[in-house]
């Protein structure tokens, strides 16, 4: 260890030292120069020019304004992309005619069914292989193998097996959901701190109680991550699934709009997809705040 600011060699201020030597007594460290001091500004005193939500909406609004400008000046032709104004009008029409709400309801229903089905399958398999060696040997290898197949590539098979009704669409969504949940819940279970399991055992917990009080809560962060991923995948699967001969739902609206070159309707549908996805994300975040409040995590500034 080296201390660079070792005190200077203060020779004994005694009688045999000439008195005209600059005295070391009043300022103990004569060579040290006082550094310039600056205040540490408290957070509350920092100037906040704009509230957060306003700052965050400025960017998208500017983008919209630019888009409207390009459309109005004719640089962006309506066959390529409709103007924001037109799109807003179209959205209002689609809503008031009831077309959009009913399409949303149909699509939402597909996602919910797919989520429930895939969630049940994924979590069950993850528990099987996460909690028992036998389950792991039976389940995990198969799932890892199937994971290599891009699930969207299974659409043709699903059509042959399940026809073109709701079944192939829901199955596609369920498949995407099941994989994500399986992988994350399984990893979550296996990632539970061995020391906590040992502590639980030392408290006399039975195997069931260990699973309930230690393993499952410990796997919850992983499960929530899995839920987020699987929601994102669910929307993707929905978009793909609804391209298969749909006769209703948002995908059907889009296919129809494509045939009539209605870029405004297409954009409205995309916005709806985005809106639904965002809503789902907000729900999951709220769920995380509720269920994972025990976690010492960084919340951002």
């Amino acid at each position, binding site marked *: 260890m080296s201390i660079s600011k070792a005190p200077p060699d203060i020779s004994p201020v005694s009688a045999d030292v000439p008195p005209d030597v600059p005295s070391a007594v009043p300022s103990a460290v004569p060579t040290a120069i006082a550094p310039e001091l600056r205040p540490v500004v408290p957070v509350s005193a920092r100037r906040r020019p704009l509230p957060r939500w306003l700052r965050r909406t400025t960017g998208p609004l500017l983008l919209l304004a630019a888009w409207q400008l390009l459309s109005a000046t004719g640089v962006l032709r309506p066959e390529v992309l409709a103007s924001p104004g037109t799109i807003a009008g179209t959205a209002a029409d689609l809503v008031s005619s009831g077309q959009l709400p009913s399409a949303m309801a149909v699509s939402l229903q597909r996602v919910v069914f797919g989520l429930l089905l895939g969630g049940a399958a994924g979590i069950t398999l993850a528990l099987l292989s996460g909690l028992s060696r036998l389950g792991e040997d039976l389940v995990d290898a198969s799932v890892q193998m199937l994971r290599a197949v891009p699930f969207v590539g299974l659409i043709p098979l699903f059509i042959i097996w399940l026809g073109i009704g709701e079944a192939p669409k829901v199955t596609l969504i369920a498949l995407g959901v099941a994989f994500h949940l399986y992988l994350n819940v399984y990893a979550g279970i296996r990632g539970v701190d061995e*020391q*906590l*399991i*040992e*502590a*639980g*055992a*030392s*408290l*006399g*917990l*039975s*195997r069931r*109680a*260990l699973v309930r*009080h*230690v393993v499952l*809560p*410990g796997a*919850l962060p992983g499960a929530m991550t899995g839920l987020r991923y699987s929601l994102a995948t669910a929307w993707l699967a929905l978009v793909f699934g609804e391209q298969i001969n749909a006769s209703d739902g948002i995908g059907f609206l889009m296919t129809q709009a494509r045939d009539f070159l209605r870029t405004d309707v297409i954009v409205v549908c995309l916005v709806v997809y985005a809106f639904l996805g965002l809503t789902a994300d907000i729900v999951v975040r709220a769920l995380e705040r509720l269920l994972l*409040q*025990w*976690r*010492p995590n960084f919340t951002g500034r």
Partner: protein
Amino acid sequence: MATELHRPVSHDVPPAAGGPAAVRVAGLTRAFGGRPVIDGLDLTLRPGEFTALLGRSGCGKSTLLRVLAGLDREIAGTVLVPERRAVAFQAPRLMPWKRVWRNVLLGLPGRPGRAIAEAALEEVGLRERSGAWPKTLSGGEAQRASLARALVREPDLLLLDEPFGALDALTRIKAQRLVAELWQRRGCAVLLVTHDVDEALLLADRALVMRDGVIAHDTPVALPRPRDAGDPRLTALRSRLLAELGVDTPASAETA
């Protein structure tokens, strides 16, 4: 993973040896991959006795403690332990997803109420943090919560694996006093694993040194309490124990 606790970790018929005992170990062997870490170890702990187990890092102290706790049962030999026993580890090992009082009650039979947890937390001076999440506790507080969790089980045998090792010096002194106090009130047998000779001399009735897989040295610490680390009567004992641990310069050197 799961172990059936509250049952003696025994293999053979208990030897009907003389005197009451809180722990009776005979010919215990535990090997990792063919390398015995505990090798024919014999040990008897008397009820209500405070025993310190010293030994160099890696000599098998934690392994022995885990065997006594019933956490490690890949053993040979006889191990008899009381049904009610509790462990406090070096890290508090609180379940981060349970509030402090729920951590304290975890694993208790029946449906004990929060009041029971709070009584135990009161004993370690932590009652007002009963509803807190473990992440909001300081190191010393978490360790005290872990102690409360062990004590609420009213153990006949309390196993402590370097419970003060991760605490800062001031907190450690307070925690040591707390343990001494709790032990005197409860009267349970305590086995304290430590690598700190002074800690052993401050707290224990009896000091053991573990070496080469057995208890190599066993000495009573017959001094009245409360003790002072500077007590001259401890000096001879300290140098003896340090010598047993392989440290020659008694006063300055400290085991790691």
